């Protein structure tokens, strides 16, 4: 069917006319949905239409047309132009309008990301995607499909700090579980890059223990990194899964990470030479998983742990003794390690170079400062907020008809007192 000028103009007119308020926009949306096939077939001819529309005012219409335009395969120069136009659109579009057609918006953003990666310039995509996330989210607690793409671009372009700022938001609502896994995995990698191992551990833990009927490659890779980060940050790894981990994960994850579990066993013995031997044996596996850098960090963390253990037993110790106990080669190396640990704040000590002695000090934190009180206060507020959230969720759940129906059906199985509150009309 040919798109004659008449219907094109009417399309433009409709868009221009119905972009006033929310009622008109819903009307526009249904109209555009009807025209969707039309737009698709005539995608190559739609480019000039865009010039007649103002993206900030007619965002919904612009979105549809733009999406139809960009769905066709492109050459390299066209790609560059496409990237520019989409970036422009994202920056100026009206958030409420695009939220009416989220799938379209997501689709052009994904296209955008693909092109940026193809052009080998991921940094161009970082800022626009950040804007697109903020516009698409209904609240900062929502995880959109674009989050993992954004994380990926941050990783590729090494813009870790921006990635971290997005990771600061707590996420509670999710569209697709797969998004969460990817988001947490990439997020974990960003945190590792920034040496924020505590947050990395948290994110990777979420992937590993998330409910999943079957395991995915993301979970397997996340588990491997989880083991390594756990060794670096905590100095140990608990091979038993928490109770809430899915049974699929509990049964299968370990089968894919045998070399990592060997590393854990050697680490817990405490001899650096053993760990290094294990690394040598499994070098290829680690390399093919791109984890060799992390593994090297695991080995150096062993020295740290051993020195930390010494602070519990000794008040002063000679550098020679430290080198001997921790299996370092010379007092000079021991001094280097201790110096680094003091700088990073892992231990509190002073080095007396004249005597070659290290004096270990107690943690000077007295918990008496205003900052500490503020920290406590903040912590309390957060926990109160979270508890409130939990109670609300519980209340909503207990009013949910499907929940009540299930409880009513299962009433016979449970103790009478537990579910007395459910009305009898919910029996079967």
């Amino acid at each position: 069917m040919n798109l004659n000028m008449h219907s094109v103009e009417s399309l433009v007119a409709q868009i221009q006319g119905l972009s006033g308020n929310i009622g008109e926009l819903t009307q526009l949306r249904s109209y555009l949905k009807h025209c969707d096939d039309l737009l698709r077939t005539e995608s190559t001819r739609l480019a000039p239409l865009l010039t007649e529309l103002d993206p900030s005012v007619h965002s919904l219409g612009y979105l549809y047309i733009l999406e139809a335009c960009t769905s066709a395969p492109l050459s390299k120069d066209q790609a560059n132009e496409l990237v520019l136009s989409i970036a422009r659109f994202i920056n100026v579009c009206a958030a409420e309008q695009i939220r009416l057609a989220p799938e379209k918006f997501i689709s052009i953003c994904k296209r955008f990301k693909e092109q940026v990666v193809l052009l080998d310039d991921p940094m161009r995509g970082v800022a626009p995607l950040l804007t697109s996330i903020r516009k698409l989210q209904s609240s900062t607690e929502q995880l959109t499909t674009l989050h993992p793409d954004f994380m990926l671009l941050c990783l590729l372009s090494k813009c870790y700090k921006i990635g971290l700022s997005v990771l600061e938001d707590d996420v509670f609502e999710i569209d697709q579980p797969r998004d969460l896994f990817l988001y947490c995995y990439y997020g974990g990698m960003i945190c590792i890059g920034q040496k924020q191992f505590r947050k990395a551990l948290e994110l990777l833990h979420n992937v590993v223990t998330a409910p999943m009927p079957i395991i995915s490659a993301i979970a397997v890779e996340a588990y491997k990194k989880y083991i390594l980060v756990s060794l670096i940050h905590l100095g140990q790894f608990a091979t038993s899964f928490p109770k809430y981990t899915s049974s699929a994960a509990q049964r299968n994850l370990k089968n894919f990470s045998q070399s990592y579990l060997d590393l854990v066993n050697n680490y817990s013995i405490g001899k650096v030479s053993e760990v290094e031997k294990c690394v040598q044996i499994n070098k290829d596996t680690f390399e093919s998983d791109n984890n060799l850098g992390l593994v090297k960090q695991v080995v150096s963390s062993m020295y740290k742990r051993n020195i930390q253990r010494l602070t519990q037993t000794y008040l002063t110790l000679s550098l020679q003794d430290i080198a001997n106990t921790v299996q370092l080669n010379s007092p000079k190396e021991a001094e280097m390690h201790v110096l680094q640990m003091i700088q990073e704040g892992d231990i509190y000590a002073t080095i007396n170079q004249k005597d070659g002695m290290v004096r270990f000090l107690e943690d000077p934190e007295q918990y008496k400062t205003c900052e500490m009180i503020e920290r406590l206060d903040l912590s309390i507020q957060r926990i109160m907020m979270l508890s409130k959230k939990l109670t609300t969720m519980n209340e909503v759940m207990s009013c949910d008809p499907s929940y009540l129906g299930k409880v009513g059906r299962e009433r016979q199985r449970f103790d009478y007192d537990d579910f007395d509150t459910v009305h009898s009309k919910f029996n079967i």
Partner: protein
Amino acid sequence: MEAEDDAAGAIIGDEEIYANGRDETDSQRHRPIISGEQLDIEAYAALYTGRTKTTRLLFIADKCGAPSMELEALRMAYDEIKKGENTQLFREVVGKINGRLGPNYGLDNAWADAVDRRAELRKEKLENELNAYRTNLIKESIRMGYNDFGDFYYAHGQLGEAFKNYVRTRDYCTTSKHIIHMCLNAILLSIEMGQFTHVTSYVGKAEQTADGLDPVTVAKLRCAAGLSHLEGKKYKLAARKFLEVGPELGNNYTEVISPQDVATYGSLCALASFDRSELKSKVIDNTNFRNFLELVPEIRELINDFHTSHYASCLEYLGNLKTNLLLDIHLHDHVETLYEQIRSKALIQYTLPFVSVDLNMMANAFNTSVTGLEKELEALITNDQIQARIDSHNKILYARHADQRNGTFQRVLQTGNEFDRELRAMLLRANLIKHDYNLKAARKH
């Protein structure tokens, strides 16, 4: 006023620091008396009767490592076995002697065959008697018949059969005396066989009999219980049992244990496992146990040394006694552990009253080197048995008491963080499950 102060100051200035555990004036009294001379095998063997005498002698022969002692022990074992009827053990001993004691101690086949023949006849006789009693259904006779069988098998070294027969008498016991008799036999066999779980259960059974037990039996049962706890490495319980044994035991249980053993086992286990107050009340002030301690003066001395903090001499006594204790059949496997525990306790007790301890003085008190002592202390500190830290530069040990307030704050902040993290993860998971559930529900409709 000022003159007095000066005088007081002068006196304080003249005092010296005394090392703990080393009082020069008392050095004469606490010089070790016994230097752990080589075990007098005859005297040792004379303490026991019955099968245990032979097994102990054989054990000594196995473990002593000195050929003269070994031969002495084997010779005595040979003589002992010849007095009995155990031909299998006889052959074993002859094998071990291997002709080294001359022609008188060779394989006397004539004797062995004669004994075996006698045994066959006796066995037949016993069987016939037992069958007769069984047809007559006289409980008392049947019981005695099984008992005789048990005795017979025991004398011939077939311990499993003997045990079975003794236990079979249980159905035919009519008085509590019978029950106690059966229990004691079962206990004896179990100890010989090394099955100490049976020992505990039969001791329990015997103690539950309604009629009062006479003191000798009570003492016997307590010894048996103590032995089974010792084997089970429950040193505290073993010590308590041995310490409760009354002096009525005397020489009534020499087929299992001698009073010297009760003293030794009880004291060592107590030293290794009791705390200071329990040691004082249950061992040192225990009048009953004193009778036993008199039989082993070295052990009495070392307990007193430990209590009065003369650790060097205490550990010296222990070192001297070690070789002989390793030859004891029940204590052999536990000597190392007990010694380690006693030594650790000594170290911990030494450091307990002080804020700072000079490691040089402590090394002198324990007769060891400073580096060795440092290693031992490091192990104890890592295991949280001593709360202190070592100043390796000046070789001083400083007591360290954890600051409760800081510790509490730290724990609070940590708990808060954990709670935060767990709760957020939980809400996330709940949302995931809800999403999944909604998806499934949507598909269904």
